[in-house]
Every structure is written in C-alpha cells, then in structure tokens.
C-alpha cells in the first residue's frame, strides 16, 4: 500500500447556492445606461430607437423643478393606495375564509380560478359603467387586479400553516378566534407577504391602465400622453418613475418581512 500513488479526493460539492453580491445589480444598471448613452451619442443607436439617458434625466429634472412630478404623482399614489388596500384587505379576508371553511372553499375556489386569468383591463368599460368614469372605476380596477392574486396567495398560505400547531392550540382550550389570530394569521404571514409583492406589482401595472380613461393627472396619464406624441424622453421619464415606485414598494415589503418574520429559520 505504502508505495501506491496518493491523490487528493476530487471535490464534487458546492454550487447551487447563489448569494446576492453587493453592487453587481447597480453595475449592470450603470453599464446598460452607459452603453445606451454612448450608442445614442455616436449615432450607433438612432434617436428614434431609444432616447438618450442624459436627456431623460434632464426631462426628469424639469418635471421635478416645475412641480409637475408631484402633480402627477399625488393622484397616482392615492389611486394605488386606495385600490390596493381595498383589494388586499378583501383578498386576505377572503383567502382566510377559503382556508378555513369547507363550504366557502368549495364555492369560491372555482370562482377565483375563473376570475384570475381575466385581463382586468378588458373589464375597464364595465367598471366605468358600474363605478363611474371618475376615481371609482380606477379604484375598482386596481382593487380587482390585486384581489385575485392576494386570495390565491393567502389561502395557499393558510393551507400551509402547520396543523399540529392548531391541534396544540385546541388542546390548550383556545377559542376559534384566538386560534385564527394567534396561530393561523402569523403562520400564514410569510405566504401572504410574498403574495403581496406580486399583488402590488400588478397594482402598479394596472395604474397605467386605469389612467388611460379620463385622467388629467397621474403618472399613467403622463406616460400615455407622451407616448401618443412620440415624446420618448418624457415617456421614459414616466417609466422610470414607475420603476422607482416598484423598487420602493418591494423595499418596504422587504422591511416589513424583516420586522415581522424574524422568527423564520
């Protein structure tokens, strides 16, 4: 044995475990923007294909200094807040009821499955008739759009709550409401919050759709107007605002998760 050749055991583990590395995301952003800037300046990218990033920034600055940004942002944020909280509140409650009661589950799950794939934008004329051309139809569109994904995420989350914890609650003589409040809701919270990420992104998408109809101010209205005039700088300035909104929403949910879900392993 002693004179036989010794080799190290080949390493076969590792990988399959991506971690997020600081700054890489930013680097990708900056590289793409620099590429676009360089391309538009050298004429390699024509002005009709893509606006020059520096021009977009200038337009954005103008929007800011003229105060128009807030004039557009305020109604949009209101619509988003009202519509999304309505949709999320009703969605979470419905999801919990579906998760807990056999009859409600049997009755509503097929209905939700039928409603989910409907492009809510297609129902916009209907909403206008039901809720009026003013804010009502916009709230309804956003609420309806956030409702279905919230319901699906919530009842899935309730289904995943550990049943032994519920049996434990019963074995300590806890009442139904106590069990829902102290065991089911906190147990479902991780699923509800990750559903919220999707719902709120959908809400931002629907905001633009909602403002297609009779909105004087609003980020969506601003983008649509710029689009119809083929004003690419303004169009992109508006799109940037929406992107930022998405980042802010996602960051806020991340913070909530950090605070509320610190108990997760």
């Amino acid at each position: 044995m002693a004179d036989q050749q010794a080799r190290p055991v080949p390493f076969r583990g590792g990988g399959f475990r991506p971690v997020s590395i600081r700054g890489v995301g930013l680097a990708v952003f900056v590289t793409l923007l620099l590429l676009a800037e360089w391309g538009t300046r050298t004429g390699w990218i024509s002005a009709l294909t893509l606006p020059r990033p520096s021009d977009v920034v200038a337009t954005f600055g103008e929007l800011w200094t003229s105060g128009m940004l807030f004039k557009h942002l305020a109604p949009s944020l209101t619509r988003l807040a009202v519509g999304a909280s309505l949709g999320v509140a009703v969605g979470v409650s419905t999801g919990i009821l579906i998760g807990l009661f056999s009859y409600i589950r049997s009755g509503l799950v097929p209905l939700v499955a039928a409603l989910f794939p409907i492009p809510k934008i297609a129902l916009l004329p209907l909403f206008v008739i039901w809720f009026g051309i003013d804010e009502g139809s916009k709230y309804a569109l956003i609420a309806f759009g956030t409702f279905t994904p919230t319901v699906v995420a919530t009842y899935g989350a309730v289904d995943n709550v550990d049943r032994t914890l519920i049996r434990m609650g019963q074995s300590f003589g806890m009442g139904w409401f106590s069990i829902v409040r102290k065991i089911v809701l906190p147990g479902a919270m991780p699923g509800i919050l990750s559903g919220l990420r999707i719902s709120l992104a959908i809400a931002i998408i629907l905001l633009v759709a909602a403002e297609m109809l009779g909105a004087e101010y609003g980020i969506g209205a601003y983008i649509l107007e710029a689009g119809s005039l083929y004003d690419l700088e303004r169009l992109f300035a508006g799109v940037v605002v929406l992107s930022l909104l998405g980042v802010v929403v996602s960051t806020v949910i991340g913070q909530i998760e950090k605070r509320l879900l610190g108990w997760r392993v």
Partner: protein
Amino acid sequence: MDLRVEGLRHAYDALPVLEGIDLDIPSGRILCLVGPSGCGKSTLLRIIGGLERPTEGKVLQVGAPPEGCLNPLTYVFQDFALLPWRTVAGNIRLGLEEHRLPPGRADEIVADVLARTNLSDFADALPKQLSGGMKQRVAIARALAVNPAVMLLDEPLSALDAQTRELLMEDLISLWTRQPFTAVYVTHNLAEAVRLGHSIAVLSRRPGRIREIVTLDKPLAERIHMDADLEAVQEHLWTMMREEARAADAELLNG
C-alpha cells in the same frame, strides 16, 4: 381527578384501530402506553384528551380537577409544537391567555415554571435558537403552566438524541418527585417506559387491544439507568412485544 376509559373502540372508515380498551388512570401516577408502530397509541391519546371522537365507548373524568387547574387535559407533543414567532416566555403564556387571570398572575406562573424547568435564562429566546431538548423543555414548561390534572405525552422524547433523552427523563422524574402529576406517556422506547411508568399498558398490534398491564412498585427516584430489576421487566415487555412488532411490520409490507 382520575380518568377512566370504558369499552373504547375506534375505526377509521373500515380500518379498526382500537378495540375493547378499558383503562384506569389514577391521579398522581404515570401510565405508560407501549405497543408496536401503528397500533393506535396516538389515536388513543387523542381520544383521551378530547381531540378526537371515539367510534364507541367513552372517556370519563372521575372527580373534579384540582384547585387552580386551568386546562385539565394537557398535551406534550412529539414535535414540540412551539409557535416559532413567540419567545419562550410567550409560548408558555399562550395557554394562560385564554383565562382571565388577575393582573400579574400570568407573569408569576411563567417565571415559576421557567425556574422549575431551568429555562429562566432563555425566557426571551426564539424557538429557532433552541436545541431540540430545550424546545421540549419549553413544551413541558408550557404544559406545567396550566397546572394540568393529567398530562398527555405522545412520544415526547422520540425526536431527541439518546443523551438529551436521558437528561430530559431525569428532569421529568425530578419534576414528578417534587410535585407528582398524573400522566399518560406514549412511547416506543421500553427503557423509557420502565423508568417513568408506575404502570405500563402493552397494546397488541392493530387493532390495538390491551395485552397486559405491568405495574412497577419501585419509586421513580430510585430507578437508575441500567437497573437490574427494570431490565428484567423490560425483557418481559420485549418478549411480549417482539411477535406483535414483527407481525405488525409484516402487515405493513403486505399493504
């Protein structure tokens, strides 16, 4: 308060699980239930604690639960069943929140059981920070907090490693010696049964019937690890269970 199980039979659809069970659970003593896998021990415990309705027969509480008892029949589960979002103290308080206690009383009780289970330093820890043995200690503390008339333990030590199991067994014995409690203790482990049981009920394979009830007179505090008398009882239990266990095993293979 004693418990009495009378003429109990239970079936899941067409599958008979328990058959003709009669048991007396006298207060202040620990009854161990042993039997081959799948013979219905957990089912019997769920029925005793009122978490499941038996097909036939009944479970009776004889006499009133003692003064200050908040939850007469209290479980300790195999997988601990701690709320991961609550601290140790919060988990222990859970069972107390259902009762209108005078202000400050709940905190007193929590501090007392934390001290009795040597957990005082961990009051603010979350379950994810605890080892398996610690988690089960918390679950035992939570059960003690409601001052149960009968503790129902379903393989409380099965998820733990051998050393932790030995330590927790000693803890249970010293808890019992200081303040005797009534318990039904389900286990696979015959060594646990002979260490903790005042009586040991052996169930046959499914449908579970009581084959024999062995009583042990030696006081709990005097039963030491690898005691010769206990080994003899354990040997006797094992001869009784061996064929049952083998048959139960074969049954599972046949579907």
